[in-house]
């Protein structure tokens, strides 16, 4: 249980900025001995100093049998040669693999950033296009206005035609009525005249007319025979 009588972590931990961490580790010679050791011995013993020291130490241990050569020596030689061979052959590949892992991490983050930038740029272009479209607004409205005027005109003319047709239908009806009436009157009159004429023909008149017709026919037939 933490009893926080005073507030914790209220200020930054230090006032001075720290130097950035080094990017690579210290330089090493032969994979084991730091370069600083060689630089340390250089002023007194030159370039071969540390190597002489190493050889001397090794011979001292061997000759005084502080280090005894036994079966483990051979095993040591074997395992060390396997390790050194592995490191020399695959060391750079492993390092490149580790670098690739880091690169992929960075690339993923960069990809997100670039994606966002690209999306925003596309949005900007689309916005510019919209602004250009706005300039053509006037033409668009004029065309629409013309369209509507044409529609209205068409509608008006159609309705005019309808009115005309309706009126014509009614007038035709009246004309037809008059013609019918005239026709009926004429027929009736003809019928009445015929009836009266037929009634007025007495039987005497009928006989006389028939006899006359027969005489005419005889005369005609004589002249007709002559023609043949």
């Amino acid at each position: 249980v933490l009893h926080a009588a005073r507030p914790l972590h209220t200020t930054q931990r230090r006032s001075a900025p720290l130097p950035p961490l080094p990017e690579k580790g210290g330089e090493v010679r032969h994979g084991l001995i730091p370069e600083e050791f060689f630089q340390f011995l250089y002023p007194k013993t030159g370039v071969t100093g540390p190597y002489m020291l190493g050889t001397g130490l090794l011979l001292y241990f061997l000759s005084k049998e502080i280090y005894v050569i036994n079966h483990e020596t051979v095993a040591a030689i074997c395992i060390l040669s396997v390790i050194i061979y592995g490191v020399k052959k695959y060391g750079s590949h492993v390092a490149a693999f580790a670098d690739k892992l880091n690169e992929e991490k960075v690339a993923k983050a960069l990809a997100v950033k670039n994606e966002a930038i690209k999306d925003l740029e596309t949005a900007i272009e689309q916005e510019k296009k919209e602004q250009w479209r706005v300039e053509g607004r006037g033409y668009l409205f004029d065309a629409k206005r013309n369209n509507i005027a044409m529609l209205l005109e068409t509608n008006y003319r159609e309705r005019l035609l309808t009115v005309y047709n309706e009126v014509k239908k009614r007038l035709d009806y009246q004309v037809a009525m008059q013609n019918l009436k005239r026709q009926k009157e004429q027929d009736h009159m003809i019928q009445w005249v015929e009836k009266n004429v037929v009634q007025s023909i007495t039987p005497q008149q009928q006989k006389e007319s028939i006899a006359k017709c027969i005489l005419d026919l005889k005369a005609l037939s004589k002249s007709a025979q002559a023609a043949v």
Partner: protein
Amino acid sequence: MNLSFFDQFTSPCFLGIPLILLSTLFPALLIPAPENRWLTNRLSTLQLWIIHLITKQLMIPLNKKGHKWALILTSLMVLLLTINLLGLLPYTFTPTTQLSMNMALAFPLWLATLLTGLRNQPSASLGHLLPEGTPTPLIPALIMIETTSLLIRPLALGVRLTANLTAGHLLIQLISTATITLLPIMPAVSILSTSILLLLTILEVAVAMIQAYVFVLLLSLYLQENI
């Protein structure tokens, strides 16, 4: 230092102070702590990648409840890997050659899987004692056999690891003794045994890694059956 063949397997002592705890915990010093930065150096990146690989491999077959075991299985794997690989260096002591240590790792973990299974799903756990599709007359015999195989699992786990590593180390010692003894007598045979030793060393590196993986894999398999 006159070494006999079995000096490498004696638990290290210095002036009467047992150093076994130190030798078991020492590999933890070699593993860098996970750093608080986004892009780490090569070693930390590789370590993170390996741990991701191991954990993914172990946890994929397990269901959600089994993922509670992720930490212990992964850390066990890393411990065994480092201990086994460090044991190949000369004049080192490998804690996993001691049967006591391996049984101490295998027995409690196996018992934990068994008790988890018996506690949460007893009939399913006991059902594993009978494989599917056995003919009826064989059932009693098969249950006995399966029970025996279940109870022998911790012993097998521990002894497998111990035997593999002990045998490997012993073989290395023997062949290097032969090499060094034959060197003044028959140099040609000595060179032959050196080549054998090189191959054996490569084999031992592989065995060290494989045995660690097998140990943890079998534990995760026992867990799969019981969780």
